């Protein structure tokens, strides 16, 4: 599928786009010795089967049934990324637990460190906007999803300052059009006219917004500032009309895109396309901050070995092993397969970044809303960091934040968010919101 010239020009008129040269070649590497840092987060559904998620001694993640095996699978992904991986065990979504934003709502907490009533931006938005990581790229940040564009709590990991979710793009065609939208054959004068017209509209819209902001009381400022940020993003794309990175092949259009709305047969392909587009956007330096929300894609029949209803018949039936109860290995195996599938997609993203030479400057965070999905528990959520060499993180290891003890409470994810923010040079002492302020402070020893 190619984006029509008319459609592209319509979009460019207001949104801007890139004059990307279509090429079958590899994307030009954006990595230099001082390459800009990138932060990517992937949400994976259904928690984890801890028995198959926890590495074996010697940081063995390739044992039979290991759900982390894709990170040590050179045959499938070109190389092993085991040495890039830091497995964090014992992270709790504590600020959510304090106020009941747990279980299926827990994704609200992953990057915000706040419960459902929090007003702070999620870490990706904080780094992109407040810390300025997204200032120099055409897209301040990129928020993608698969299967759900819902704005409900529990369906988003990216949140604006003020406490509203950042909408997700779930259609690869739309993502492609926004990132690489120039069709073949668009004439230079047409593009220039569209750009000039867009700028003319934008100037007036910005002036109107400025006048409104002057009239509005303080309580409305955060919301209007968000609007101003959106206009700056559009302006950046209007002024950056040239870029050197090759556009990937345009993705096909999918008839249906939503879970429960008929999108199920396409989710595997859509996920791969979203990942590939994200990797290209990052490696082409179209953005330095990106998130991907892999919705609960139950009923997608992604794996022949699993029942159709993964949510009810796999996640809810998981029977964990604990100190007094041996658990049910068959249920571990099923959930482990689902986890393996999700991590396979993350490994694909890592591989794509590596191929484009962008992995060294990237930090990937992967997390879920639950640990034990049968308990809907937001404790011990499976947390992975995949870090490039630009980050002073000691990888290739398993870090048990409970120090091997079966503690009821683990470490608040706020400390991880503080640690990551600091890795990007943001001098924060705390991250998130909670009446239990002790949850918010401190950082993890990742180095």
């Amino acid at each position, binding site marked *: 599928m190619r984006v029509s010239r008319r459609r592209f020009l319509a979009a460019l008129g207001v949104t801007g786009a890139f004059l990307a040269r279509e090429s079958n070649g590899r994307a030009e590497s954006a990595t230099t010795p001082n390459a800009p840092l990138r932060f990517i987060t992937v949400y994976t559904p259904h928690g984890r089967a801890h028995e198959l998620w926890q590495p074996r001694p010697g940081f063995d993640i390739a044992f039979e049934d290991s759900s982390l095996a894709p990170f040590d699978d050179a045959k499938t992904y070109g190389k092993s990324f085991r040495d890039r991986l830091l497995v964090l065990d014992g992270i709790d979504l504590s600020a959510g637990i304090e106020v009941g934003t747990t279980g299926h709502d827990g994704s609200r907490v992953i990057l915000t460190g706040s419960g459902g009533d929090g007003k702070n931006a999620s870490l990706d938005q904080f780094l992109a906007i407040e810390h300025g990581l997204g200032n120099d790229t055409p897209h301040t940040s990129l*928020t993608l999803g698969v299967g759900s564009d819902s704005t409900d709590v529990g369906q988003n990991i990216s949140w604006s300052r003020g406490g509203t979710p950042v909408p997700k793009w779930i259609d690869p065609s739309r993502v492609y059009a926004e990132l690489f939208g120039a069709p073949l054959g668009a004439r230079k004068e047409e593009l220039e006219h569209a750009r000039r017209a867009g700028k003319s509209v934008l100037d007036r819209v910005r002036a109107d917004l400025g006048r409104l902001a002057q009239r509005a009381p303080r309580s409305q400022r955060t919301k209007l500032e968000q609007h101003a940020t959106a206009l700056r993003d559009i302006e950046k794309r209007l002024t950056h009309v040239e870029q050197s990175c090759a556009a990937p092949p345009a993705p096909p259009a999918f008839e249906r895109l939503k879970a429960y709305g008929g999108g199920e047969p396409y989710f595997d392909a859509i996920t791969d396309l979203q990942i590939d587009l994200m990797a290209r956007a990052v490696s082409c330096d179209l953005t330095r901050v990106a998130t991907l929300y892999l919705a609960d894609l139950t009923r997608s029949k992604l794996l022949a070995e699993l029942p159709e209803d993964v949510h009810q018949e796999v996640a809810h039936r998981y029977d964990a092993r604990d100190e007094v109860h041996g658990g049910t290995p068959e249920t571990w195996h099923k959930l482990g397969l689902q986890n393996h599938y999700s991590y396979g997609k993350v490994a694909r993203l890592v591989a794509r970044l590596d191929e484009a030479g962008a992995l060294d400057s990237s930090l990937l965070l992967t997390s879920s809303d639950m640990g034990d999905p049968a308990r809907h528990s937001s404790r011990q959520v499976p947390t992975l960091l995949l870090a490039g060499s630009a980050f002073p993180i000691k990888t290739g290891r398993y870090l048990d934040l409970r120090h091997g003890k079966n503690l009821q409470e683990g470490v608040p994810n706020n400390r991880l968010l503080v640690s990551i923010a600091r890795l990007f040079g943001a001098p924060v002492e705390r991250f998130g919101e909670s009446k239990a302020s002790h949850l918010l402070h401190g950082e993890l020893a990742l180095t």
Partner: protein
Amino acid sequence: MRSSLCAVLLGSALVVLGCATGGARGISAAHARLEPGAKLLPARARRLSNFELENSLARVTGLPATIARDLPPDVRQEGYTPNARQDVSSAWATRYSGLISELAGRAAKKIGKDAGCHELSAPCRAQRVAELGRLAYRRSLTNDEQSSLEQLLSDEAAGGESFESALSLLLRALLESPNFLYVTELGAGGTAGTTIRLDDAELASELSYLLTGGPPDEALLRAASSGDLRQPEPRVVEALRLLALPDTRYQFRRFVLEWLEVDGLLDTAKSSRLFPTYDALKPFMLAETESYVDEVMVNGGASVQSLLAGGFASVGPEMARFYGLSTYGPRASLRGTARLGVLQQASFLAAHAHEDVTSPVKRGDFVMRKLLCERVKRPAEIGLEVVMPPPSATLSNRERLRQHVADPGCASCHTTLDAIGFTFEGFDAMGALQTTDHQRPVDTRASVRLGSHATQTRELDSSATLTAALLENPTISECFARHAFRYFSAQSDPAVEASFLDLRAQLPEAQRDNLFQVLLAYVASDLFALRENGGD
């Protein structure tokens, strides 16, 4: 449905206001006074919801603007799409801009064929800017706005662009402007903590979006220009006129569907093994509820009681067959069936169920939250982790959920939640009648305290007797009004809701249950016209 909402008011105590005559006699019936110190809504700039946006775009462009499905969905507050906290994110703005660019091009072509100026001369530029600007901003343009937009057209003319091209650019500038995207409630401004009065144009927009979900029409803009809307009586007269418009029903339909939590029904699924007909039937389920709401709003007293117990179904042949009715139509009798109103409609029952099995918890939770306004604590708030009762091939759903009341921690909430939900067990996960569950007879009996203030335990044997018990409970009418205010005011603030409910309480008892009467009292009050500056 051809009849208007005004028909309701013609049959009510407010008939003296005169839907037909436009007179304002007897307005005192609707006067309710705000208590000194009552909490007001804050001064604010509220971004239009996608529904409001479509209506507003259609008014300006003269074209149907079905862009909501292409925009990121609304961010909701308390489940309602009108939301004063909604912002304009980069992703939203990017998508919206692309859609507007395309719409503006089509609209410019259409306008180019309409009567009026078709050239870029100075007088023509001024006329087009003033006309379209007034439609888009829902007020006359300021001199600066007028001259800036005329300059836009002038620049296009100088560049040799066509009339259509220039008009398209003008439309884009108007429709992307925050003056279009936000409904302002700012008045003349002032220092924090002071009370402000909405200006004339804001009063018109506020009234129109409240009752129709769309922008003010020409008559309302004229009333605003003359200053009439500053007084309660003319506001109510205009409100009655708006309620008489045929499209007003979509606003009230949307409210009830969002209140009932069925507006997303088409995005739900059921087990294809257990409920193979669900996908084909769900559009008819939703259509039934839409038609039923229209019928209740127009002819049924616009009350929660009518919604719960209309005693009829508004169905076509598909749903009539599903329900086992011998007739269909807008008022097909439900006499002799287990169904009474919205709580027994398939849309509600399917939306509040799992994919493969009923959910007494979800159904009970709805009754607690949306009819009794009881806040049910989340398990984590009381230190509990949820463990789903294991699936069973032999136990009924009710038997599976016994664990809820066996565990003292769970029992504190689930004793009531589940008991309410058990009364619905006569309906399966897609709303069909069921008499057995896993080969066991369903048991719909329950002992329930309806609300934390209830002094008596009610012995119920079905959702019909639950409905009857709810109808006797005065809480449901106030709770419904509270939720209505959350939708119509686009925010949830218990203190402001208390002000609204106080207005309602001042109405004669016979009028308090009628949603229109309550909203008219609001329209006539200072709670509608005043705002607190600097609040959030």
